[in-house]
């Protein structure tokens, strides 16, 4: 399993995700600076980490989405290889149209950092195959613009296609306003593209990967990806 983590000016979860993925899977994770022209050819998984690329100025992820390295990321995705965007990475993926939707300010109009419960609704993709269907997991969120928005007809479409992977819920798994801290439409926390190889989510699996950090639900994601890549590669 070869992972590349793209670092933009202002990314700040790059080191975290490198730590978590290499710690959990024991595989090599390389940083790729946004000014580099290409992603290493052997790369199986590209991760766009959280943070505040370009200061989150103008719109979160807007400037990063238009930077040269994203052409390589799009090419990587078009070859059916894996791309994962976490938090600001998710925002970058929507801004670059690799995923549908846009992120608006949280309904509280504040930054929110706290543990959240999520329901895993799709487990037939490389990122989640180790989760059980409808499993309730706990990942933290940490963002100011995380309210997932899509016009009604497009929203219906991604729902019908089963592209919603993670939904905010209560500790008992109820999909209600209660568990939906940022006010996302349909409680959407993470979605995948139609091909199933590009995933974006606002919560941070890398912050839920080690017991000492308070939980290991996120580690399953890294193990899912590793299992899938090992299988595909063989």
């Amino acid at each position, binding site marked *: 399993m070869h992972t590349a983590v793209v670092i933009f000016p*202002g990314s700040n979860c790059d080191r975290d995700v490198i730590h*978590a993925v290499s710690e959990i899977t024991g595989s090599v994770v390389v940083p790729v600076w946004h*000014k580099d022209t290409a992603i290493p050819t052997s790369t199986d998984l590209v991760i766009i980490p959280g943070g505040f690329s370009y200061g989150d100025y103008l719109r979160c992820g807007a400037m990063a989405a238009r930077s040269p390295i994203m052409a390589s990321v799009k090419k990587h995705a078009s070859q059916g290889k894996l791309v994962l965007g976490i938090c600001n990475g998710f925002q970058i993926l929507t801004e670059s149209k690799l995923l549908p939707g846009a992120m608006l300010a949280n309904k509280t109009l504040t930054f*929110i950092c706290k543990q959240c419960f999520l329901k895993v609704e799709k487990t037939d993709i490389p990122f989640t195959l180790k989760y059980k269907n409808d499993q309730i997991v706990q990942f933290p969120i*940490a963002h100011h613009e995380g309210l997932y928005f899509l016009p009604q007809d497009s929203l219906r479409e991604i729902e019908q296609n089963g592209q919603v992977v993670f939904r905010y819920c209560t500790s008992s798994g109820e999909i209600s306003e209660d568990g939906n801290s940022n006010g996302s439409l349909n409680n959407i926390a993470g979605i995948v593209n139609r091909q199933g190889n590009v995933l974006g989510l606002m919560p*941070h699996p890398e912050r839920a990967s080690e017991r000492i950090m308070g939980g290991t639900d996120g580690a399953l994601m890294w193990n899912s990806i590793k299992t899938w890549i090992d299988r595909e590669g063989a």
Partner: protein
Amino acid sequence: MHYSEAGLRENEYKALVETLGREPNECELLIMGVMWSEHCSYKSTKPLLSLFPTEGKSVVLGPGENAGIVDIGDGNGIAFKVESHNHPSAVAPFQGAATGVGGIIRDILALGARPIASLDGLFFGDPELQKTKNLSDGIVRGIGGYGNPVGVPTVGGKTFYDKSYTDNPLVNAMCLGHVKLDQIISSQTALPGQAVVLLGSKTGRDGIAGAAFASIELSEDTKSSRPNIQIGDPFVEKLLIEACLELKEKGLIVSMQDMGAAGITSSSSEIAAKSGVGMIMYFDRVPLRETGMEPWEIALSESQERMLMIVEFENVSHVMSIAEKWDLDAAVIGEVIEGNDYIIKDGETIVVDLPATLIGSDCPSPDWESSVPSDLAEKWNFSVENIPFNNDLTPDLRDLISSPNLREKKWIYEQYDQMVQLNTVTGPGNNDISVLRIKGSEKLVGVSMESDPWKCYLDPYRGGAETVARSIRALAVAGAEPLGMTNCLNYPSPEIPEQFWELSESVKGMAACCSELDCPVVSGNVSLYNETASQRILPTPLVGVVGLIRNEKEMLRCGCWKEGDHIFYVGLSDPSLSGSHYQMHKMGSPKGRPLIFNGQAESDFVARALGTARKGLARSGRAIAGGGLASALAKECISSGIGAEMKLNIPTRKDILLFGEGGPRAIYAVPSDKIVEFRHTWRGFPIVMLAKAGGKSLYIEGHLNIKVEELQKIWRQE
């Protein structure tokens, strides 16, 4: 220009002329006015600060550098310091608080350390006032607005409300950094022939003379005396952090200094003076954001996100290429020379020529008069009879636990990224210390932040000692051995003899406790003149103590009672209501004398508490602090979701026992198989078994009966 317009006093001006042997020119005068301001020179407090013990077995760097460093073993050091940004936050809450966070991060960075965590001490005024709501909202947003993007988690803090802060809110920002001990960068190692490089943002007219502004009383109409507000850019700061650390990794930095108050002048002259060299600065080479800036404006600009570093000339091009990688401006703006001359040139003209050592030091100390306040007897005139006793204390507990001071601070810390960098083992919440892991090592770092203004107001010596002790007790209970302390001394004007007395006495009290508990002071900051015409703040020393937990097994958490655990109370049963939350609740103002500081008992407590944690003798432990025993019990119940039923067979008046504060005391939840060893560890120290954890209520026969569920609700304001 008259020297008073530059902010100098007559004796200071005379001293300046005498040292120079001539009249200073206007630019020199402006520079000296800022550099000899209270904020930059510490002139009022230098003699006082020398009372602090500064040496100890773990101290690597003490006061004098940009921050202190303690040794945590395995070649790792923790750099830390706290700094105030009070006046700027009063005027522009968001920007003031934000740049406070940015500034302290650069102090840590200057040592070559990676900033790994922040804490914030916030003091707000009357919580009922809209003014307080606006200020606190802006300040909290500002702290998150900077700390979150810059990628340094805010892992804890202290929040305190009292009406004395209504016009003068306090914002104290603390930062911790991690550095390999063999990679520390100093600000005292510049040598002649080296280049002076400015890295970071362009210089504009931001906050010019802001340092001087920090040292004057706020006028009623802050709009009219409006200073230039500094705007922080956390995006650039993040780049600056990475660039500086890359430069350090590559061995390119000889010496470094952050640019805080008084910008380029302060940072460069400080390096020169501490290194025992001179410097020539070329102001026409400084990258500017605005046109037409005068030399004095460039000299004193407080534009944010800039660092000054000394590098070998042969490495300059390498440094420039790294700056370019991180999209930062960089320029060689001077060179180090032999001697003691600090020269600023603008083109061919010499605009400043001062002795380097004069600028940052040599300011005459003002020698403020000190006198015991005449109302001391009146303040101390309190007997417990002044508070009528009522057997049923349930309503009091309800009021206390839901008061702005003691209730959950979630509205604050949920606006902060508490976890980025993946080191936060215990973040903010229902606990008194925060804990960080150090990746690649077994060790954990504990940090606690405390302040106790009501007690400092009543008796600054005892209050100062209690503040430090409280911080250390919390660490010890969690299994963290205190290694060093930082502090921020927030006071009103020192020019009033009674106020200078308060300042002096509290420093003495703090110093006494530090010495007794072997906790040296490694860094700190002073903020004076926190007053307006109609209001002055309570004496508010704030401390941050860093401690070492040897490994995760030796760490004791709180708020995790299990059904059947034995709940023990350790400590004397005669705390004091003076300056307590209960007294404030009952009487509206502090009265009486807080408990006397007992060094012997404190260090005895610390040793036993550390032993308890290290041997794993308890499941949960909490030092007793604000709100007393009852609040500590309530907080344990809230987090554990379990109650306890008890009968108090202690002859003290029950409200004193339950709500009194001060002295080394704690509660522990001990599993039955550890009781013998636990008792053994505490033999010779007052210890009482209170109850077995269990049930749905916190019940104290005859005095308290409240459902845990209700406690949770009111504490969380749900």
